[in-house]
């Protein structure tokens, strides 16, 4: 017995050198390497996402603050209206020499010798040139202010603002620096007296285009974008839903519908700039619509968004089980009634999710808008979609081409606002899906 068991065992336990080398160690190492590559790939993707967002936020968060200089402005009658003509001709107030008011206030606040022209120039350079319109509007709105003294908060010039936020390298020689030592001294003085302080930058949300960074904002561009989104929503949603209903529920399976199907899938992948060319040639050249108008932008974005909405809607319609249709038809509803009373309402969450995602895509789109003339310097709010306007991403593009430090900050700030819009829209789409989606 013992002999037998030992002989059986000897067949099982081979000597090490006789064992076939199947390279298990090597194979496991390869397995670990392969898995590590995959993990590394994901980490690379996430790393770039992080760097991208960090770049935008770290460069942009300062844009939400703006340095302001509060000065006691003496609305002296001698400067605004020396010949006392404003009673006869109120337009005189529009052309008065308001920068002098700022100059005098600065001379007083900083204690400069008024005869020292270069020094006075350096001082007035610290205040944004937009102070002129600001004071003018104050006086025109309330002429009684003339002859009194009031504290007015003026925007600091872009470079001073940057210096106040510590973004200007002060180790650079004074001559090659935008902010001079004398100005830095004054800034210190003004900050100590509390005249110069950082405030929340409401202007970023309300102003329009400006060549001076401190007076530039995204308000006008955001309104243009809003117009376009409304046009896209009003046109693309009904047309997209109608087209998908036809294709999904009514269309016979033939060559034509096959062609439409391929066509829609292809349109979803056409480069967006091609839609810009289409808009330029059809809407502007052929139909004679105005350039730079939100209407044309909205139409172009509508055409661009339609395939997205159609694809999403068709998927949502397809997901509604046939039993719903059979039940409605069996109770005597017509096909149209079945679809509009039963299938479409059940598919609506999916349709809306697709629409929101399409809208979010349209909101961030820049290239087609460049071609239809929306790279425009628009200062005033557009009153209607026919007026010249610009869009949020186009404004970002225009700012990105500006060299000044303060514009880099504003570009990032505007990108943050755009991204927040997109995040809100996408979160809305996700919540909608979570809340209403049914699994059949």
């Amino acid at each position, binding site marked *: 017995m013992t002999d037998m068991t030992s002989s059986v065992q000897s067949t099982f336990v081979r000597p090490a050198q006789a064992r076939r080398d199947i390279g298990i160690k090597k*194979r*496991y190492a*390869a*397995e670990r390497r*392969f898995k590590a*590559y*995959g*993990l590394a*790939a*994901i980490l*690379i*993707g*996430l790393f*770039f*996402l992080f760097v*991208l967002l960090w*770049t*935008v936020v770290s460069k942009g968060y300062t844009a939400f603050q703006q340095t302001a200089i509060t000065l006691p402005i003496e609305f002296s009658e001698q400067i605004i209206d020396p010949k006392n003509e404003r009673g006869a001709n109120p337009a005189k107030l529009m052309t008065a020499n308001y920068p002098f008011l700022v100059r005098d206030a600065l001379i007083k606040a900083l204690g400069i010798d008024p005869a020292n022209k270069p020094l006075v120039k350096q001082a007035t350079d610290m205040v944004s040139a937009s102070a002129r319109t600001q004071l003018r509007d104050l006086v025109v709105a309330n002429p009684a202010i003339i002859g009194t003294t009031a504290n007015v908060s003026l925007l600091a010039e872009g470079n001073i603002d940057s210096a106040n936020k510590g973004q200007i390298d002060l180790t650079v020689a004074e001559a090659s620096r935008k902010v001079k030592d004398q100005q830095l001294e004054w800034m210190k003085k003004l900050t100590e007296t509390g005249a110069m302080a950082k405030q929340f930058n409401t202007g970023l949300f309300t102003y329009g285009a400006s060549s001076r960074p401190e007076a530039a904002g995204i308000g006008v561009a955001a309104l243009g974008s809003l117009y376009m989104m409304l046009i896209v929503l009003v046109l693309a949603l*009904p*047309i997209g839903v*109608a*087209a998908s*209903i*036809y294709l999904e529920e*009514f*269309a016979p399976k033939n060559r034509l519908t096959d*062609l*439409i199907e*391929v066509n829609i899938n*292809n*349109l979803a*992948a*056409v*480069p*967006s*700039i*091609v*839609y*810009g*060319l*289409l808009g330029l*040639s*059809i809407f502007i050249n052929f139909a004679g619509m105005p350039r730079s108008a939100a209407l044309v932008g909205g139409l172009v974005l509508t055409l661009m968004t*339609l395939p997205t909405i159609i694809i999403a809607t068709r998927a949502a319609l397809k997901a509604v089980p046939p039993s719903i249709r059979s039940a409605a038809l069996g109770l005597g509803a*017509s096909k*149209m009634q079945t679809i509009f009373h039963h299938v479409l309402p059940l598919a609506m969450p999916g349709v809306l999710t697709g629409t929101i995602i399409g809208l979010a895509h349209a909101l961030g789109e*820049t*290239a087609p808008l*460049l*071609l239809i003339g929306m*790279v425009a310097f628009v200062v005033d709010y557009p009153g209607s979609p026919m007026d010249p306007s610009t869009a949020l*991403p186009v404004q*970002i593009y225009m700012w*990105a081409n500006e060299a000044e430090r303060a514009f880099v900050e504003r*570009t*990032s700030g505007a990108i943050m606002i*755009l*991204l927040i819009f*997109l995040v809100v829209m*996408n979160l809305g789409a996700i919540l909608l899906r979570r809340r209403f989606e049914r699994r059949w």
Partner: protein
Amino acid sequence: MSTSLILLIILIVGLAAYFAGRARAMASSKGKLSVLHSLPGYHGVYVAIWAVLPAAFVLAIWLLASPFFVENSVRSALPESVHSQGSATTELMLGQVMQVANGLKLLNTEELAAVTSGSSNLRDALAAKGVPMANAGETYMVEAAQKYNSLKDGSRWVMSAVVLIIAIAGAVFAIRGISAPFRARNRVERVMLGALLLASSIAILTTVGIVGSMLSEAIRFFQSVSPSAFFFGTVWDPRFSAAGSGGTEGQFGLLPLLAGTLYIAFVAMLFAVPVGLFAAIYMAEYARPVVRGIAKPLLEILAGIPTIVYGFFALVTVGPFLRDISAQLNGLVTGNYVNFIQAQSVLTAGLVMGIMLIPFVSSLSDDIITQVPRSLRDGSLGLGATRSETIKRVILPAALPGIVGALLLTASRAVGETMIVVLAAGVAARMQLNPFEAMTTVTVKIVNQLTGDLEFNSPQTLVAFALGITLFAITLCLNIYALYIVRKYREQYE
């Protein structure tokens, strides 16, 4: 009456027609609704359709056609001296007449009388109202302009009247047809079906519009520049010609742009494909559900970020970073701290575009890998293969056609990408192989040629459409082939 007012009135008539139709149906049912073939609402909608649709149709036709008629009759009313100078002058004069006509509306009766009798200068009178005129203007212009105005006003009044009559007549006609057995629902549903069909034909119309508009503009371009000089030219130098400098036609060679486009797309794919593919494999085969649930949406955020943001990222972060690091490297090796990578370069644009493409590659491939049937995977694992061996020898070969399709779709996106290359690739059109130098792309040149002040008939702007149709053709081929592969692949495993 303004067009929007007419539209509003039509809609009000339609609303009234709806209620009238409904009431009529209710009345004809004599209190027993079940005798009606269709619900009263359908009768109402039927009447409303008859009220609104024909009227709106006539309105649209009239608005499109009337300018031609008015212009034609004014044109024929212009004196013989104008016609004898050829059609270009006639059109110019016609344009001026319309300008005058707009101006005349702003004048009051006395000024108008003075202008008509010729006692006051037309140009000065109009300039005072803020209407500029190219030349002094002549008396026949005032006559023609008045004729133009009266024709236009007359046409408008007739149009309003006709449209209103049609709306009311349509409603009355439809109401008279209503009776209990009338099949209103079927009629309404037929109109609805027509509307649905119309909506779905917009997709076709868009493609026809894209091809038609770009082709017609491109043909105008090819009338001044020969196709062979465009498609095989190796120099891009459009030279916005200064006035009067003869012989500066400019050269429109496509090849440098195409080379730049393909090179940048290639660099982007070189970066995005391995990263995206490995990420997809890890998520489909290795990742635990929790990891997948976090990593997948995070990666997809990359796909939702607008491309202008990537462009800005390339411009302020990646470009300067590559430039500085190349200067440091160069300095460490040779002691000469000069950068060999330009801030705007093929590498910068390709790298950033690659980041943008990662989620496209990964989510498309993820879908395809997870579609490979479970049985293939189990068979391979059961035979003792490790997971990576299963992936490399079984799953990837099975998924290969689908993955190739996904990569082609991604490549089409890379070729058509605009904002990143506008900000990161530079504008120098040259053919070279150094990825550290700037090159430019088709899309950048489309944007360059079409932003700013346009003079629409010059080859300098029309070339954008020739570039556009080239781009469209390239992406169309890529897309259709890719969609074909993906579709065929999907059928294989469904």
